[in-house]
């Protein structure tokens, strides 16, 4: 029996403003590409969560002192085995070491500061570059259980 060739990777780089409709359009493209490559629902949940948190951080903190409507850059590459994302803003940058642990007793009741924790929990890798302006994330598809041979 002939198998369809595995879909190859799909990649794009876009500049996007803080507009919910445009963010939904971007997400719909990513989600379809992930589904076509066999990623389960848990994977699309993880990638959406990380992408939303990274974009929120870029819009809220990175662009804090920039004119409204300033875009950020989102790059993605969806491969059969992994998803690579990068979110970059043109702001002043920051030191990720300065972000306090939101799970300590002292910080647990604070309303903010959980985005980075969630990104690190759900992504296989998350690394800041360019003095904190660029966050590169990699999500590896979970390995499927081996097929049973009777």
């Amino acid at each position, binding site marked *: 029996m002939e198998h369809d060739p595995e879909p190859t990777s799909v990649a794009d780089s876009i500049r996007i403003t*803080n507009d*919910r409709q445009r963010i939904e359009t971007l997400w719909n493209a990513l989600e379809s590409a992930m589904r076509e490559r066999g990623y389960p*629902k*848990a994977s699309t*949940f993880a990638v*959406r*969560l990380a992408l*939303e*948190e990274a974009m*929120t951080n870029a819009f*809220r903190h990175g662009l804090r002192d920039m004119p409204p409507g300033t875009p950020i850059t989102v790059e993605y590459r969806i491969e059969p085995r992994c998803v690579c994302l990068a979110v970059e803003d043109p702001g002043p940058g920051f030191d990720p070491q300065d972000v306090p642990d*939101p*799970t300590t007793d002292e910080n*647990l*009741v*604070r*309303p*903010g500061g*959980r*985005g980075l*924790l*969630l990104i690190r*929990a759900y992504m296989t890798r998350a690394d800041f570059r360019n003095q904190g302006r660029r966050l590169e994330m990699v999500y590896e598809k979970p390995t499927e259980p081996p097929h049973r041979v009777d």
Partner: protein
Amino acid sequence: MPADETRLRITDQDGVTRVEFLDRNILDEASIQRIGEEIGEIIDASSEPKLLISFSNVDHMSSAALGTLITIHHKIRNRSGQLRLADIDPQIKEVFSITKLDRIFTIHEDTASALKSFG
């Protein structure tokens, strides 16, 4: 969507205010802010508010939404009220667990058990 249109369904059951979300995704910052304000008004209108927030329709929520829930938690405590969360999808429940917010919120499997738990 008009800016003042509610994204919540609010019902009263035996003195407990039950809040449900109309949207599957609680991600948009402006919507989250409106939700926080609307629930804040409900809390302010009662001396000892009993609030049940049901996540039965919710597929995704952001850390900003968690922040709003913490603010709601503080407001209810300040008015000697009670807050319960219920009907949370297992994937979202994991978000509560990773952030350790399952330590500060009282989370029930479903609405029925949450309703029974109010004192």
